[in-house]
Structures are given as C-alpha cells and as structure tokens.
C-alpha cells in the first residue's frame, strides 16, 4: 500500500509541475513563487514582528486550505476530462491507494509549503532584521502551524477530492470548491458576528492564557472529526463503476 501511495504521489506531483508549462516553469510557479512570497517577501516587509505576531499561527495553519483548494479540483475530474481515469482504474492499484495517494499528494504539497515557508520566513527575518538574539517562533506557534497546517491540508484535500469525484468537469469541481470555501469563511464570520457580547468575551478568553492549549486541542479534535468524515465520504463515493459511468 505504501509503495502504491508513493507511486501515485510521484505521478501527481509530476503532473502538477508539468501542468505549468514544463518542469522548470512548474517548479517556479508551484513552489518558487509561493516560497518567495510567503517565506521571503512578507517576512522581510514585516520585520521581527513576523515571528512574534499572534496572527502567524492563525494565518499559517489555514494557508494550506488556499494552496490545496486551488489544485484539488483537478484530482479526479481532471483525469476524467483527460481520459486517463479508466486506464488508471483498470490497473492493479487498489481503490484506497488511488484515493489516498491523491489526497496525500495534495495535503503533502499544502502542508509542506506552509511548514517550509515558516522555516524560510524565520531565516529571512533573522538574516535581514538582525537582533541581539535569534528570533524564533514560540513552541506553541510551531505546534499549531504543524498540526493545524496538516489538518487544514487534509480538510482541503479530502473535501476537494470528494467534490472532484462527483463533478463532471474540472470547472464544475472548481466552482463547487470555491463556493464551499466561501461558505466556510462567510459562515465563520457570520457566526462570530452573531454571538452575544458575553460569548465574544468568553471566546477571547478561550484563546488567551492557560485556556489556549485546551482550546487548541478541542479545535484539533473537531478538525480531525471533520477530516475523518470527509475521508469516509470519499471512500464511500469511490466506486470504479460509478467513476467510469459518470
């Protein structure tokens, strides 16, 4: 199973790189530009605050959602559109190897880029804004970015793959995916605004001091449940006959 997952990840990443006009162009646009923007330009512009701001873990743990969300529509709908899906399904690969391989490729890309840009950003800040001591993000910040980055990558990958499995074209998958993301963001904003003032204060307290770690653990558990539900949905939806006839 692991060897099959690696094979699918190899194929998916190679396709991703080649989809941007050749290997070099792909490396520049899918890895180079995001890394320069997120790991060099933004940290350089923001200075030492980049490492210490409490916004960093919030922004960086959700960054993969955007990175993966932009690519995931292609996963199955693209194979179907390019007429490569049936041949892949006729191979010896198991359902789970194909499905999880595609999810792993996408989640690995989003998560890897988030963690890499955090590391590069730290190097950039220390190199371009020298201080008396080394500026490093706190342990909690790193843990939040690593754990939530992975969970949000999985959220985007599993949800997007589920949508792509059902969509008849890449365009349709991309549209549904965008709407789902928009609904997620607007829903969160609307929920925050609709909370009574006393709840707002309690929520703020939950993210400060000794309550922070507990809140993070609860949020991580919630995300794990959602990810598991989406993965289960994708597993249930992945049926060779349906994929061929859709």
């Amino acid at each position, binding site marked *: 199973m692991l*060897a*099959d997952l690696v*094979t699918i990840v*190899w*194929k998916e990443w*190679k*396709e991703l790189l*080649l*989809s941007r006009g050749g290997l070099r162009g792909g490396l520049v646009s899918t890895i180079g530009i995001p890394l320069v923007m997120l790991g060099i330009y933004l940290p350089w512009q923001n200075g030492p605050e980049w490492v210490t701001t409490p916004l960093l873990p919030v922004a960086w743990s959700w960054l993969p959602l955007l990175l993966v969300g932009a690519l995931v529509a292609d996963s199955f709908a693209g194979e179907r559109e*390019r*007429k*490569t899906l*049936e*041949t*892949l*399904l*006729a*191979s*010896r*690969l*198991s359902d789970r190897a194909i499905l999880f391989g595609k999810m792993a490729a996408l989640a690995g890309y989003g998560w890897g880029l988030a963690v890499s840009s955090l590391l590069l950003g730290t190097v950039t800040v220390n190199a371009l804004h020298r201080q008396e001591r080394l500026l490093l993000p706190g342990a909690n910040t790193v843990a939040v970015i690593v754990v939530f980055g992975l969970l949000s990558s999985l959220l985007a990958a599993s949800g997007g793959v589920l949508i792509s499995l059902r969509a008849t074209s890449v365009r349709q998958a991309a549209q549904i995916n965008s709407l789902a993301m928009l609904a997620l963001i607007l829903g969160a904003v609307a929920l925050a605004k609709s909370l009574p003032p006393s709840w707002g204060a309690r929520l703020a307290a939950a993210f400060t001091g000794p309550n922070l770690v507990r809140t993070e653990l609860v949020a991580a558990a919630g995300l794990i449940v959602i990810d598991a539900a989406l993965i289960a949905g994708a597993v249930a939806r992945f049926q*060779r*006959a349906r994929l*061929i*006839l859709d």
Partner: protein
Amino acid sequence: MPEIVIRTEALTRDFDALRAVDNLNLEVPAGTIFGFLGPNGSGKTTTIRMLLGLLEPSAGRAEVLGFDVPRQADEIRLRAGALLEHHGLYERFSAWDNLEFYGRVWRLPRRERHARIEELLRRLDLWERRREAVGRWSRGMKQKLAVARALLHRPQIVFLDEPTAGLDPVAAPSLRQDLAGLVQREGVTVFLTTHNLAEAEKLCHLVAVISAGRLLALGRPDELRARAGLRAEIAARLVDETTLDALRRRAEIAAAEWRDGRLLVELHPGAELAGVIAMLVESGVRIEEVRKASLEDVFLTLIEEEKRCSPTS
C-alpha cells in the same frame, strides 16, 4: 494458466431499460488472439469493462484467468493489461515517464523496469522520442505507446479495445504489424475488440460477432465464412444469358446473378470456385477480378439477419 482464460455464462448488463450485453456465452482459449467484432454500440466496451471488473454484470457470470468477475477483480487486474477506448496516456508526460509510472504501478524493480521500457520503446520505434511529451505525438504513435504500456508488466491477458480506431491507412497496418509481432513474442492471450473486419481477419485466431449485445457467431474466421456459404464476386465482361444459364445449371452453384457488371455467385458448401472460373473462361468471358466473400460479408450478413429477426426491428 487455465486452458480457457475467459469464460462467460449468460453474462448480461443493463443500463436502465437498455440491455447492453445480453446473455453472452464465450470461451477464450489461452494463447489466442480473440477478435470481438461488432458495430459501434454493440456492447464490446461494456463486455471488456465487465471482464476487468470495472462494471458489475446485471446477471450471469464470468471468469478471467480462473478468477470470478467481479468478486476477484483485483486478481484479474493484477494479471491483465489494457488499452481501453481512450489511450489513457498522460499527455504532459514523456513516453518514458508514462511507462515509468505504470512500471512503478506494477512494481517492476527499477533495473527490470528500465530494461523493459527500453526494449518495448525500441521494438516500437519510439526510443529516439522517449523524452518528448506525448501530447505532441500523432495518434498512431500514442496508440503504439499505449500498446507498450499494456504489455509492460508481461500480463497473461491483454484487452485491446479498438486499438487501430481513428488511425490513418498508414498508421493502422503499422500498429497491427507491431501488435502481431509483440503478441507472438510475448505469448500473451489477446482479447481484441474491433469493428474493422480486415483487422480481425489478419490478426485473430478466433472471432465472435456481437450485435445489440447478443452473440451472433463464434468460430475461426474461415469457419464463419464457410458457415455463411461461399460467395464470390466476379468482375467480368462478355457475360451473356446463355453463359449465365449454363452457370446456374452447374451442380456446385446455388445461385448466380448478373448485377452492375459483376457476376455474383453462391456455391454449395464444399464446392470449389476454380471449376466455375474455368467454365467461364472457356465460354469466352473475360474475367478482370475475382473476390471471395470476406469476413466482412459474413459480418454484414449476420447483422442483417439479426436485424430481420430482432423483435424490435
């Protein structure tokens, strides 16, 4: 490997009200090139999909290499190669990378995989262009590469769904020749669907004719021709009524007709055409061309009969 590699018993597949495959009974012996002939929409692709475990039958059963369809579909796919309706190549990938990917899928060890890729690409004259993205290739070259992919892991059985469809008159025979050569060298059983009868006649040891999901005939190409009766079309000049009457009186002739400058004759089973030709020449007829009934004539006759007998026609 079992002697019979594909066995279907009353295999049926419905799509809502449409019966795509209807009570199909087949036996394909090991080591043969089995031609599955039928017009477009006759159920050929649906049959392949069922045999590969990609679609479940609505009724009946099938076995491939001794494994039950669809219960042991993984075992079948492990031992089978396929070139399906579409070539299924990753067009942004090079030829090498396409085969590299599927070589990894079939877990061929690195050294063996690379040697096998080189062997196939050289045999199919694609080696020099192995680093090019296949999206820029002609359809014929893509089909050749897809054949290489289907044979890469040395499968016991290969399913080829209309491999020469859409190829030009130069590319199609070239691919057919490559295919025949590869299949002979590899000793693999081939299940080939086509609506090109010349292709089936040249490549196949056994042929099944299917129409509207129903099996119309099964046998060697020469057997099928014999079953439909020996017919010949003779392009000739100077055929008069006397000669035609004399021809009709001959024992070996079942029917003879003069139409549009062509003499259409049907012989009784076992009769030889040579005596008929000699008699015509002696009668002063100038013969320009003699064409014996091909598999195509048999095929068209069967399809016509099927249409006449079909309750829906």
